[in-house]
């Protein structure tokens, strides 16, 4: 049924893109590090540390994983009179993670909003009109969630 894909590997999830993504960013801190980088434009270790109140060893671990996966790129910088340090910048692949953050944010806005409503909005850069995350059909119009299904390609049936 699974062709040459062994049951063990299948169960291990290596063939599921959701799981492959989760292997890189599947924990709360990783998502929050990405939020600081992609939404707030932070680049420096100390900025992440300050904003998230995250233990430096955990931050180092998550940043290393994210750099290894080429989501963020490590660069060296040096301020006058100080030793050189590293900064972290989103790659083009990393920037696409913005959509994952947008989806998490929108669900939170819609279903578990803070008392005074959302604190941060998604807007178009040019005319500041509201932006939602949606399924889009080829050719261009948004498709409601209940009109989308997930199917297995013939090779895996």
């Amino acid at each position: 049924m699974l062709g040459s894909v062994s049951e063990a590997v299948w169960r291990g999830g290596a063939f599921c893109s959701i799981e492959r993504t989760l292997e890189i960013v599947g924990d709360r801190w990783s998502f929050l590090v990405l939020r600081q980088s992609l939404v707030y434009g932070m680049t420096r270790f100390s900025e992440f540390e300050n904003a998230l109140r995250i233990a430096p060893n955990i931050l180092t671990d998550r940043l290393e994983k994210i750099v290894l996966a080429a989501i963020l790129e490590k660069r060296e910088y040096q301020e006058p009179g100080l030793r050189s340090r590293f900064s972290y910048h989103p790659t083009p692949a990393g920037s696409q993670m913005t959509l994952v953050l947008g989806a998490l944010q929108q669900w939170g806005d819609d279903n578990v909003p803070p008392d005074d409503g959302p604190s941060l909005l998604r807007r178009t850069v040019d005319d500041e009109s509201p932006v939602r995350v949606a399924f889009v059909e080829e050719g261009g119009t948004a498709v409601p969630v209940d009109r989308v299904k997930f199917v297995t390609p013939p090779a895996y049936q």
Partner: protein
Amino acid sequence: MAISATLEAPVDSPLCSIQRTLDIVGERWTFLILREALIEGETKFAGFEKMLGIAPNILSDRLNTLVAAGIMEKSTYKEDGARARSSYHPTPMGMQLKLVLAAMQQWGDDYVPPSVGVTQLRVAADSKSPVRLAFVDADNKPRALEDVAWVNTPTYPAEARAARRAAK
């Protein structure tokens, strides 16, 4: 005084919707349980356990969190000759998490695909045409990442964040 009191609390946690969502589903097992429920249609405890190879105590814990958050609804079923057992069904608000799963799936498809290629596609249920996840504007027109910006509302904790940034 007021500022340091604010700083004791996780400054942006309760106000940021990304973080509020992550407080419920921000963990690998939870996402995988949701994958089985929302995409594969699994409802039975034993089914989740088998497909994920997850320890029953962890599964139990994560399902309870999802039920408490109103993402899944618990009901009971009874098979002939067996005792009554629990099943778990996504609520309408739980169904909306498909967008989150699809965002992770699409990113994985695009940037870390398995060597044998993508194993599952997203298609429109009626026309079977491929769908992608995208930012869309008020007219439902897809917009490029560069066209989207985040703007603060009046409830955004700007002062608390500035204070934290300035803190040594």
